C-alpha cells in the first residue's frame, strides 16, 4: 500500500496548492472539410467537430471525479482555418469563426483554437482573407481563439505579416472596445508556433498531426512554490532538485489523465505539455515561485536567472514522467493571469523590457499585457518583431498577446474577468518604430538554420 504521507501529499497538492490538470484539448483535423462551397465546408466542419468531441466534456468530468483532480478546461484545437477555407470562394472567413463558436457551444467546451494562419514565409490569398477576418471574428464570437505564425527559425520572419498584425490587433481592440478590448486576449502572434499546443489562445491542430488526438496541459505553480517553502535558504542545487521532483509528480498526474482520456474517447494520445500556467487566484502564481527563491519582488535583478532555472528544472522533471512531451512545455509568464506579476507591475518592479528578457528563457512570450489604447500599430509591430526575433534566433517558441485597451492609458486598469484576470496598463516606448516596420519584406533565415 502506498504510504499515508504520499496520499496526504497528493491531497494537499490538489486542495491547498491548486494542483490541477489545466486542459484536455482535443485536436481535430479539418483538412477533409474543405469545399469550393463555403456553406458546405462549414457544415462539414460543424458535423466533424460535434461528432469527434461529443463526449469530450462528459469524459473529462468523469475522470475528474474518479481521480479527484480538477480538470479546469476541456478544449478543442482545429487545423488552421486558412488552410480549410481557402478552397472556397468566400472573401471573408467570419462565418467560419461563427461555425467554430457554434460547434464549441454545442459540445460544451470552453474554447476552440485554430482560427489561424501560418504565414512565416508568405501569405496565400486565403491567409490574407483569414488575417483580415480576425478582428470581426473575435468580436462576434465568444469561444474562438486565433493565432498567426509570422516567423520561424528555418525561414526567418515575414515582416509584412508583422506589420499587418500590428494593425489587426488595433482593429480587434477597437471592435471589442466595450469589453476592455477583450478580442485581443484571444489572439496570439507566434514565432516558431508548435502544432500540438493544448493551451489557449494559441492552440491549433498542425498539418503534421493525426486526424484526432488528445493533448493534455498540466499546471501547478502553487505546488512548486509550496515545495520550495520547505527548502528555504538552501543552495540552488537543492532548489533545482526540488523543482524537478515536484514537476515529475505533477506530470505523472497529467500523463495518467491523458492516457485515460485517450482510452475512453478512443482517440490517440498526443502529448503532455509540461507548463506552469498561472491563474489570477492567490497561490497559483509563477511570480511567487521566483520570489520564493529569494527575490524581493518579481522583476528585480536575478529574475531572469531564477526563471531560467525554474523552466529548465520543470522540463527535466517532467520529461521523464511522460511518454510524449510536447506543446510549449515551460513556465508561462502572463501578466494579467498571474497575481504576483500584477503586483510586481503595480509596484513598478516589472516592466515590458524585463518581461522581454524573461521570455528569452521560458515559454512563451509577452503574454496578456495591457498597453495604452493609443499605442501606434507600428509600435505593436515593433514589439512583435523583437519577440519573434528572440524565438527565431534562439530556436524557441515566442508569442505576443498584447491588449491595447481602447480608451485607456497609463494609470488605468483593464479587467477581463475569469481566468484572463486583470492588469494595469503598462508603458511602452514612446519612440517610433514606424519607418522600420514600413519597410516590409522578410528578415532572412538565420545562419543556424542551414544545417543540410
Amino acid at each position, binding site marked *: *500500500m*502506498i504510504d*499515508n504521507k*504520499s*496520499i*496526504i*501529499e*497528493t*491531497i494537499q497538492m490538489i486542495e491547498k496548492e491548486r494542483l490541477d490538470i489545466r486542459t484536455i484539448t482535443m485536436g481535430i483535423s479539418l483538412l477533409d472539410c474543405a469545399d469550393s462551397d463555403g456553406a458546405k465546408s462549414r457544415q462539414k466542419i460543424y458535423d466533424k467537430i460535434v461528432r469527434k468531441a461529443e463526449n469530450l466534456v462528459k469524459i473529462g468530468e*468523469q475522470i475528474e*471525479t*474518479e*481521480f*479527484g*483532480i480538477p480538470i479546469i478546461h476541456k478544449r478543442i484545437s482545429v487545423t488552421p482555418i486558412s488552410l480549410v477555407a481557402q478552397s472556397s470562394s468566400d472573401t471573408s472567413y467570419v462565418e467560419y469563426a461563427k461555425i467554430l463558436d457554434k460547434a464549441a457551444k454545442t459540445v460544451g467546451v470552453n474554447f476552440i483554437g485554430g482560427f489561424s494562419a501560418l504565414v512565416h514565409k508568405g501569405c496565400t490569398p486565403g491567409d490574407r482573407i483569414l488575417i483580415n477576418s480576425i478582428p470581426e471574428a473575435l468580436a462576434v464570437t465568444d469561444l474562438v481563439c486565433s493565432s498567426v505564425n509570422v516567423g520561424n527559425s528555418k525561414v526567418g520572419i515575414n515582416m509584412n505579416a508583422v506589420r499587418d498584425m500590428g494593425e489587426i490587433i488595433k482593429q480587434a481592440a477597437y471592435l471589442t472596445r466595450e469589453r476592455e478590448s477583450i478580442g485581443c486576449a484571444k489572439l496570439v502572434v507566434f514565432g516558431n508556433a508548435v502544432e500540438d499546443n493544448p493551451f489557449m489562445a494559441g492552440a491549433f491542430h498542425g498539418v503534421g498531426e493525426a486526424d484526432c488526438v488528445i493533448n493534455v496541459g498540466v499546471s501547478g505553480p502553487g505546488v512548486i512554490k509550496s515545495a520550495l517553502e520547505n527548502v528555504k535558504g538552501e543552495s540552488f542545487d537543492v532548489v533545482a532538485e526540488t523543482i524537478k521532483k515536484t514537476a515529475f*509528480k505533477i506530470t*505523472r*498526474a497529467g*500523463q*495518467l489523465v491523458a492516457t*485515460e482520456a485517450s482510452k475512453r474517447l478512443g482517440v490517440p494520445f498526443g502529448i503532455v505539455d509540461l507548463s506552469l500556467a498561472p491563474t489570477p487566484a492567490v497561490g497559483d502564481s509563477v511570480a511567487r515561485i521566483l520570489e520564493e527563491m529569494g527575490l524581493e519582488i518579481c522583476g528585480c535583478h536575478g529574475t531572469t536567472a531564477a526563471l531560467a532555472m525554474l523552466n529548465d528544472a520543470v522540463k527535466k522533471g517532467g520529461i521523464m514522467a511522460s511518454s510524449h512531451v510536447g506543446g510549449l512545455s515551460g513556465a508561462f509568464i502572463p501578466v494579467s493571469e498571474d497575481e504576483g506579476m500584477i503586483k510586481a507591475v503595480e509596484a513598478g518592479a516589472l516592466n515590458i523590457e524585463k518581461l522581454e528578457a524573461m521570455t528569452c528563457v521560458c515559454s512563451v512570450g509577452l503574454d496578456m499585457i495591457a498597453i495604452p489604447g493609443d499605442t501606434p500599430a507600428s509600435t505593436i509591430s515593433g514589439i512583435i518583431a523583437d519577440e519573434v526575433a528572440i524565438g527565431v534566433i534562439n530556436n524557441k517558441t515566442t508569442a505576443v498577446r498584447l491588449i491595447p485597451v481602447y480608451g485607456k492609458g497609463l494609470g488605468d486598469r483593464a479587467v477581463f474577468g475569469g481566468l484572463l484576470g486583470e492588469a494595469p496598463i503598462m508603458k511602452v516606448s514612446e519612440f517610433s518604430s514606424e519607418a522600420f516596420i514600413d519597410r516590409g519584406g522578410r528578415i532572412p533565415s538565420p545562419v543556424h538554420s542551414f544545417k543540410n
Partner: protein
Amino acid sequence: MKAFITVIGEDRVGIIQGVITVLAKNKVNVMDINQTLLQNYFTMIMLVDLSQLEIDFKQLNDEIKEEAEKLGVTIRLQRQDIFKAMHEL
C-alpha cells in the same frame, strides 16, 4: 478497480461506522484501514476494492459526500491510480 478513501476532520464517535455502512451497502470491500490523530484531526485512509460495486463511481462518491456532511468531516474517494502515478515509478 481500487480506490483510496480519505477521511479528515475533527474526531468524534461514529465516523468509521458511518463510512463503513455506506460502503457495505454498496458492496465495497475494505482492504486496508489506517487511522491516526494528527493535531486533533482524525485522519483515516482506507484502501477499498470497487470491483463488486453495483452503482457507478459518481453515485458512490455522492453518497459518501452526503455521509461526510452528516458526520461533519471531509471524505474523498479517489481511484488508486492517481497516487500510484504520482508516487511510484
